[in-house]
């Protein structure tokens, strides 16, 4: 790691709902200091206040798949500043340092209860999980891989939406991934989505909403437009549970809300039902 990214990392608190200090994480819900070891046992849910602590993409995959089964795909794909957008290069560098990832999504194959699956997990620490060309490309490649081999796909979403710095290239990733999901689906393959906090914008309006089975974490924000945008444009206060998973489920867009410690079992059960 070079010196610059070291400082960038030191200056930016990486986790949104839990600040990390050495081997401890401070819960943003109740302010308690919790050891990483303890949290690992609790599936990164604060044992004191129940708040869901944001987890990195890699940990997500560990939480959902069989031990040591994950094999990563396309780790080396790195975003370029295609439009020469001001300060985008620096932003990417900071994001890489903060997240210790090359991009906002981690993709690969793994096993769930011994069943082979494709899995992708987005990472909120990388530019708020925003979708640029590399995110779109990696997920598309994963779906194409899964379609060819008749594998189910598990997708864990967290995203602020399309990445502005790549302009129309970002927006078109919505079309690109959606088309790949459709081909996967037309091939009779299973796609399970796990919506986590927050899943919004261009990701909500594409592959996050195209699952055969749509699961969500309790309290996750799921929606197309940002709540502040709506508040501002309509000049009205929003209902308290607006765009929260529970409310979105009442509206008919989520199959089940699954607590973190039950997610692996739930997904394994679903995969089992869809595998001969």
């Amino acid at each position: 790691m070079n010196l610059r990214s070291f400082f960038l990392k030191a200056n930016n608190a990486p986790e949104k709902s839990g600040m990390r200090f050495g081997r401890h994480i401070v819960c943003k819900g109740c302010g308690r200091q919790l050891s990483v070891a303890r949290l690992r046992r609790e599936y990164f849910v604060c044992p004191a206040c129940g708040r869901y602590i944001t987890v990195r993409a890699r940990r997500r995959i560990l939480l959902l798949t069989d031990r040591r089964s994950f094999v990563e795909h396309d780790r080396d794909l790195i975003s370029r500043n295609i439009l020469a957008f001001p300060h985008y290069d620096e932003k990417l560098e900071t994001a890489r340092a903060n997240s210790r990832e090359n991009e906002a999504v981690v993709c690969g194959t793994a096993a769930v209860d011994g069943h082979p699956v494709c899995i992708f997990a987005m990472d909120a620490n990388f530019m708020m999980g925003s979708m640029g060309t590399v995110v779109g490309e990696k997920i598309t490649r994963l779906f194409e891989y899964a379609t060819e081999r008749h594998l189910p796909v598990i997708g864990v979403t967290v995203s602020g939406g399309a990445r502005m710095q790549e302009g129309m290239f970002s927006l078109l990733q919505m079309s690109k991934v959606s088309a790949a999901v459709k081909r996967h689906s037309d091939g009779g393959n299973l796609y399970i989505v796990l919506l986590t906090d927050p899943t919004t914008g261009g990701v909500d309006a594409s592959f996050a909403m195209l699952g055969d089975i749509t699961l969500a974490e309790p309290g996750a924000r799921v929606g197309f437009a940002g709540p502040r945008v709506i508040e501002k444009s309509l000049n009205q206060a929003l209902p308290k549970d607006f765009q929260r998973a529970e409310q979105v489920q009442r509206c008919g867009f989520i199959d089940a809300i699954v607590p973190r410690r039950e997610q692996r079992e739930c997904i394994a059960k679903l995969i089992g039902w869809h595998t001969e």
Partner: protein
Amino acid sequence: MADYDIVTAAHREGRLTASDYIAKLAPDFMELHGDRLCGDDAAVIGGIGTIGKIPVTLIALEKGKTTEERIRHNFGSAHPEGYRKALRLMQQAEKFRRPVVCLVDTAGAFCGVDAEEHGQGRAIADNLAKMSTLRTPILSVILGEGGSGGALALCHSDRIWMMEDAYLSVVSPESCANILWKDTARANEAAEALALTAPKLRRLQLIDRICKAGDPKALAADITAELTELRKMTFTELLETRYRKFRTAGY
């Protein structure tokens, strides 16, 4: 003309709206209403008409002209019901092997409590997925504003054309400047950086043609010629080419 001026001009009242183009492109146009689920969104106009000699399904985002009309059409910002109506009519077109022509002019999909609760995200996603395998040619023309996901939902097409004075963008320059620099006054800078004008997008090979603005006659001729070509393709070819078109975006 600066890029931001194109954006503000595209937003201005008094421009030709989609219904002006429809009247010239397909004088025999008949509007068909409703999404068959729960509503009829006036921001989306759909129906059948003849362009050249080809019967087509026309779907348009309409802003309206007078204040009254503009309110009725919700300034061209569609609710999920609008996108679902569009999809219904596209599937009908598929059934009868009619080509689909989409005319896009919207600042974006509507942002509101009811739009969210009725599944704006799902409606757009569904259009993207289902249009990707729709077994009939689809041609989209950005007439003025091409605002983000709300415009994209009618642009999963075999050909994407733009008026010379239109824009197509992932985000409005104002929001972009606000999010990145906390300063909406820098929207002109953002507009420049976003590469949202027709010439820039053509250079990036993200659109297929730049059309002369305010000339529906020429547009009708171009559409007829293009649809005639597209109809010569087998469905397998058509869908594979469509898949490749988006597959290669950025890669």
